[in-house]
């Protein structure tokens, strides 16, 4: 588990924070995904990219929830 302040504890919190910040990096720079091609069976890139994030973002939150467990607050 790692007590507060121990390297394992700190490491876990770094990972959790990065996982929670990932969607911000992926979505708040629309320059990177505002384009029509490549399409996915006729769906523009701009749309399927964001839908992929809907799924991946949920997946990340579930991972964070599992890594974090039911423990109290940092």
């Amino acid at each position, binding site marked *: 588990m790692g007590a507060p302040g121990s390297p394992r504890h700190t490491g876990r919190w770094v990972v959790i924070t990065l996982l*929670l910040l990932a969607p911000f990096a992926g*979505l708040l720079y629309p320059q990177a995904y505002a384009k029509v091609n490549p399409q996915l*069976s006729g769906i523009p890139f701009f*749309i399927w990219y964001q839908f992929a994030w*809907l799924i991946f*973002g949920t997946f990340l*939150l579930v991972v964070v929830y599992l890594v974090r467990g039911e423990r109290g*607050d940092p």
Partner: protein
Amino acid sequence: MSRHDQQLTVFIVLCALVTLLGFGASRWRRAKLDHLDEWGLAGRRFGTVITWFLLGGDLYTAYTFIAVPGLVFASGAYGLFAVPYTILVYPVVFLVRPKLWQVARNRGYVTASDYVKDRFDSRFLALLVALTGIVATMPYIALQIFGIRMVIAQMGVNVDLALVIAFIVLAAFTYSSGLRAPAMIALVKDTLIWITVIVAVIYIPIKLGGYGAIFHKVAAVEGKKPYLTITRDQYAAYASLAFGSALALFLYPHALTGVFAAKGQAVIRRNAAFLPAYSFMLGLIALLGYMAIAADAKPLEASGANGAVPALLDKMFNAPFSGFAFAAIAIGALVPASVMSIAAANLFSRNIYREYLRPRATSAEEALVSKLASLVVKFGALAFILWAPATNVIYFQLAGGVWILQTLPAVILALYVPMLNRWAVICGWAAGMATGTYWLVLEQFKVTIHGYPWFGPHNKLYIALVAFMVNLGVVVVGSVAAYALGARRRQGALTDADYQPVAAV
């Protein structure tokens, strides 16, 4: 039976069912409803599943079902900013809401304003936060009525009369059952909405020749508007709308009411992980805007682009199922309207009435004032809808986001930064509200993005976010200055222990 009669029959049967459920909810986990904790927070006993339905039913409103696809229908890909918005909101919830929930549980808080009062030892700042919450919520309730109006109009009924009936029913069950009513109705709402959305995103594309064909048709009608992706001058607006809206959502009183009614921190974390299922639904609903373009759906003239989804459902489905879908949208608007009126009423009874008008009010009196305030708030919103031009509703709802975001330092930063100074936060709030409202006035309340010369000539930014930056700047400079002048970190009436989970007794 005519088509409208069939639609209306299904619609009325479903709404009647929900009404019975709303009144019956007062018997659910029966308790004395003359206490604000019971009427306004249902005794803080909701577990993971009920919280999931309640928050899902509470956060995904007529804005989701009507305004977002309407914007996609009218403006194309730009309207999809709601998708990143709804993804980004959950990491924020995961990080900050459990801590706020814990202190609220330990100290018996019903509103965010309760926390602010103790944290800053300031009745004045608490009053500002309460007033901001009420002012930001009113147009949000009006937007729900607006959503109901869109579907009723599509069925060709006397709109005003139907709206008044819908609101008497809503007001009555909210008054008698409190938060238990929308929580129970949310189970039905979510079931109806999920069925409607799943059928719509499978059946309509089949009729239109598949998703590829839909986007092909959309591209063919693309004139001046960029329908399939956003353009260079929309980048900054798109990202700032998504980010600012994500920060603002859980500051709304109705979102916090749903959070405070949960029975544990773990319930909130689980919900932050599993609520995004609704975000996926929001994405699918946004696509209905494209389907409406491809199907050449014609919204009613009086409804404008916001009538796109009702017109699409009416065009694509047979009468009984379109009636079912309309009922899903209308009930979908009743749940948030009910929670919002409860949340605004709690702010009034707890933070204005009891704080300033009748400090010695008993719990029973406080709960009664809250019930009465919930009626006033709802009928105020109804009056607004009946007499104000329909288009204004959407604009004022957008302004609500600008205002509510200005409470972030007092409600959220305060959880983590002991150094925050009371007067710095008050001045920051005033600066954010003043600049935000000023820019909204410059845009005549018609859009929430504004061009800022320092940010380049072609880029526009979400006003809420820029006003928040001004707010934050004042808070930081003011707090540092106060510290330099000798003010020391203080936690108001709270100690560290107030933020910690209490061992089960």
